[in-house]
């Protein structure tokens, strides 16, 4: 039985940063899983990802979102990134939790991902599920996680990229 679900890279920020990058991602796995627990440097923060330094309108995404009082759905197509959450809610003191499952990232078809956002803040916050698409047939070898420029990821933010291998 092959070894699977291995850490590829991990980072814990010691100072605030606007971007977290995973580069030189090996193409030897089947799927990728990104796990991010984010704090914001000054205020509520938003986050999104791009692949292989492609900041052009080659992405699209659809979400389901609950904010504690209503549920909604949005579609953005085309987009210049894949949102981890439509409106993220990490703050300076309460982390938000995000995941992204990126399927067949090294294959020669367009790349689909499922992202989750879990950001309850004891009386506010939201929960989301997104499906995202990158219309590119290249293998993904780099992932950049950006903030929405309102604030940076704060010290203590952790991000880990795992590789999942099929049998």
């Amino acid at each position, binding site marked *: 039985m092959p070894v699977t679900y291995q850490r590829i890279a991990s980072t814990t920020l010691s100072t605030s940063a606007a971007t977290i990058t995973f580069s030189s991602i090996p193409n030897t796995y089947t799927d990728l899983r990104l*796990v991010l627990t984010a704090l914001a440097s000054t205020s509520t923060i938003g986050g999104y990802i791009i692949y292989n330094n492609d900041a052009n309108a080659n992405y699209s995404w659809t979400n389901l979102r*609950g904010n504690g009082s209503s549920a909604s759905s949005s579609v953005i197509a085309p987009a210049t990134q894949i949102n981890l959450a439509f409106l993220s809610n990490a703050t300076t003191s309460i*982390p938000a939790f995000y995941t992204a499952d990126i399927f067949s990232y090294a294959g020669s078809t367009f790349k689909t991902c499922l992202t*989750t956002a*879990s950001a309850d803040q004891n009386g506010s916050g939201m*929960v989301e599920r997104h499906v995202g698409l990158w219309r590119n047939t290249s293998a993904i070898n780099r992932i950049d996680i950006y903030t929405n420029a309102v604030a940076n990821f704060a010290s203590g933010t952790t991000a880990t990229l795992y590789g999942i291998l099929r049998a």
Partner: protein
Amino acid sequence: MSTTYIPIQSTTLSSNQASVTFSGIPQTYTDLVLRASTRLSGSAVEGLLGIQLNGAAINISNTYFQSQYSTGTVNSGRDAAATNAVIGYSNDGGSTSNTFTIVELYIPNYAVTTANKPFSSATALENNAAQARGFYAALLAQSNNAITSLTITRITGGANFVSGSTFHLYGISNA
């Protein structure tokens, strides 16, 4: 390169039981994942599932959205902080025989002592009848203490998890 996603503890009920506790959770992993398959022993179609952390010593709040076959709607709500917090719904004894609910919890950075802990839950209940529900929640453990024990409870519905319910706790390491 090290392997991760390691089984920590596992329980398959051989008789009905009111709750399942994983205690003495080692502090050597980065994240915890709980996967369970549950059914309750009452007469309703479904019952609410709960979670207690560190012997119900931690307040937990949530924000959720859910899809319900019975109403044909998707809605969102929020529960105030409680020590037995809602994580979703389980098949109860009034649902179609042999149907069990899928439960997944993901708790990142559970051993960290410098911040509150956000985590996620998802439960999926399909009944081949006039009740089904998908439930997705963001939860917040309002304590900086490390999580050392975890209990899955029923809040409403039958008094017990039935024999055959399974609960598996895994540790994920980023080392």
